[in-house]
């Protein structure tokens, strides 16, 4: 659906996007991740044909964004960051304008508009002025606009920016629903979002693409952060040393002690689940263990590590 090769954007004295290449297949939900100012919006603006690239090419559904921009734009439903809308229009009026602009005619307009209103649950506010809408509704109107001509590809730039937690959740549900019919590229800096809805993650930092994996792969890649949490009670003072002796244990730290219960964090080699060995040792030594938990690393850790290691 999207095919990007060596796409670059240079501004005077600095390059905002540097030689990135990736592709997105039909039906995928791809998260586009990166810190603020990493070049996410610039890349998206190039994909949507709003700004031309300095070099490199991008194709949307086989159409080049620069030389066949009208055909490429026809395939994209785009919702820019902060959802700019005309405040002096009513919701229905705005959607009608956008539908006509995107080449819909006659009955199709009415049908598609009703579907979009239904899908984004904004039927009740269709006669309101856009200026009177709350942030959440504005977002939905923006999404309805992106959906109105049923484009095969949706590009959403930070769609949950500024929404409250319950709105974020319902927005997420909506995206999942949309994923059945559309390919979605969604840019964000909220990791939990990506983890929950995306099939694949592209990580961009300082204009360079530094990751292209599934969220799961990405976390698995993180060797350093696999830990076992342990709550233990014993009169034995050598717990720390004893556990350290188990092969595969890299480091044991005593986090805190409360009423005799010791909270310990055991770092182990990547994916090396040593819970059995610890329990085994515990039963031999008569330790009381009330919790033992193997913690998979989160995407957040992977992300932070990747972004930081690149910039250092």
């Amino acid at each position, binding site marked *: 659906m999207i095919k990007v090769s060596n796409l670059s954007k240079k501004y005077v004295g600095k390059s905002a996007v540097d030689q990135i290449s990736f592709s997105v297949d039909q039906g995928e939900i791809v998260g586009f991740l990166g810190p603020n100012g990493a070049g996410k919006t610039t890349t998206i603006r190039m994909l949507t044909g709003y700004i031309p690239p300095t070099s490199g090419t991008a194709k949307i559904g086989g159409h080049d964004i620069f030389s066949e921009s009208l055909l490429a734009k026809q395939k994209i439903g785009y919702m820019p960051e902060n959802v*700019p809308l005309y405040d002096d229009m009513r919701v229905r009026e705005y959607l009608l304008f956008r539908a006509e*602009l995107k080449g819909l005619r006659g009955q199709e307009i009415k049908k598609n508009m009703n579907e979009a209103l239904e899908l984004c649950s904004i039927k009740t506010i269709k006669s309101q002025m856009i200026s009177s809408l709350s942030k959440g509704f504005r977002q939905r109107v923006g999404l309805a606009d992106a959906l109105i001509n049923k484009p095969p590809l949706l590009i959403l730039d930070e769609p949950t920016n500024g929404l409250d937690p319950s709105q974020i959740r319902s927005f997420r549900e909506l995206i999942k629903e949309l994923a059945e019919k559309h390919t979605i590229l969604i840019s964000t800096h909220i990791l939990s979002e990506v983890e929950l809805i995306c099939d694949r993650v592209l990580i961009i930092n300082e204009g360079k693409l530094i990751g292209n994996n599934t969220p799961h792969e990405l976390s698995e890649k993180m060797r350093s952060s696999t830990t076992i949490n342990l709550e233990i009670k014993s009169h034995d003072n050598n717990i720390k040393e004893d556990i350290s002796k188990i092969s595969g244990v890299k480091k044991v730290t005593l986090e805190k002690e409360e009423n005799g219960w010791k909270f310990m964090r055991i770092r182990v080699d990547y994916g090396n689940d040593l819970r059995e060995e610890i329990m085994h040792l515990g039963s031999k030594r008569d330790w009381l263990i009330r919790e033992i938990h193997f913690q998979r690393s989160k995407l957040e850790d992977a992300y932070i590590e990747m972004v930081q290691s690149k910039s250092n």
Partner: protein
Amino acid sequence: MERSQYIILILLIFITVTPTVYFLLSRTGVIILKKELKSIIYSPIAWIIISLVMLLNGFSFTAALEILRKNDIDETLVGYTFSSTSFWLTYFFIFPVITMRLFAEEHKIGTIETLLTAPVKTIDVLLAKYFSCLLFYIILWIPSVLNFILLWLSSKENGSAIGSLGGAYSIILLLGIFNISIGCLTSALTKNQLVAAMACFTFCMLHFLIGFILQDLPVPELWRNGLFYVSTVNHVEVFINGLIDSRQLVYYLSFTALILLITYKILEFRKWKA
């Protein structure tokens, strides 16, 4: 006519008719035009401007009638009406006010992004905005024609100054065509509507009065004569006397085309820069 005049005429038709026909045939252009006209008409500014223009036209018309009634002089009603101060007062304010929001507002609130990422051409957007203002401008002057029609209907002196009236409205239309393109340009240059309006106002004012201003300044004779030729106030005089001068037609129409072309380039350039 000489051969060169024919060539100029053909060129003139080419640069004015081609974009207009192209625009009328483009579907998206007409859709944006409709939307722009709507947002002009739904805004209070439009109605303030319409009432201001009607009011000041009424003043200048009445004043002209009064002068003709008191004095026995050889001047036309049209001539007096369109050279009065209150008439030109309106003229200066119209262009900045109706054009300032065109692109500046879209850039400011970011809707230019949704507009240009829809399957539309930049040139359609530009022409739609330009023509929407021009249409509004034409609507703005319609009530003032009624003044003359009413007078003629009641005095039975039908069509005595029809040439002069035609000339006056031709120059008004011509100035509209030209100055709205200036407004488009200044609005495309900035995100700030006030800056756009002031730049447009300054330009219109200077262009209108440059001949007058230079008369009292120590500039070379050649410059003075050259700039006197482009200064609007002289053109108006010629047209009000009922003469539609082809030199002015060429001047305004060709410059309008050039300025719209520059505006188009600026819009494209902002995309490269943004």
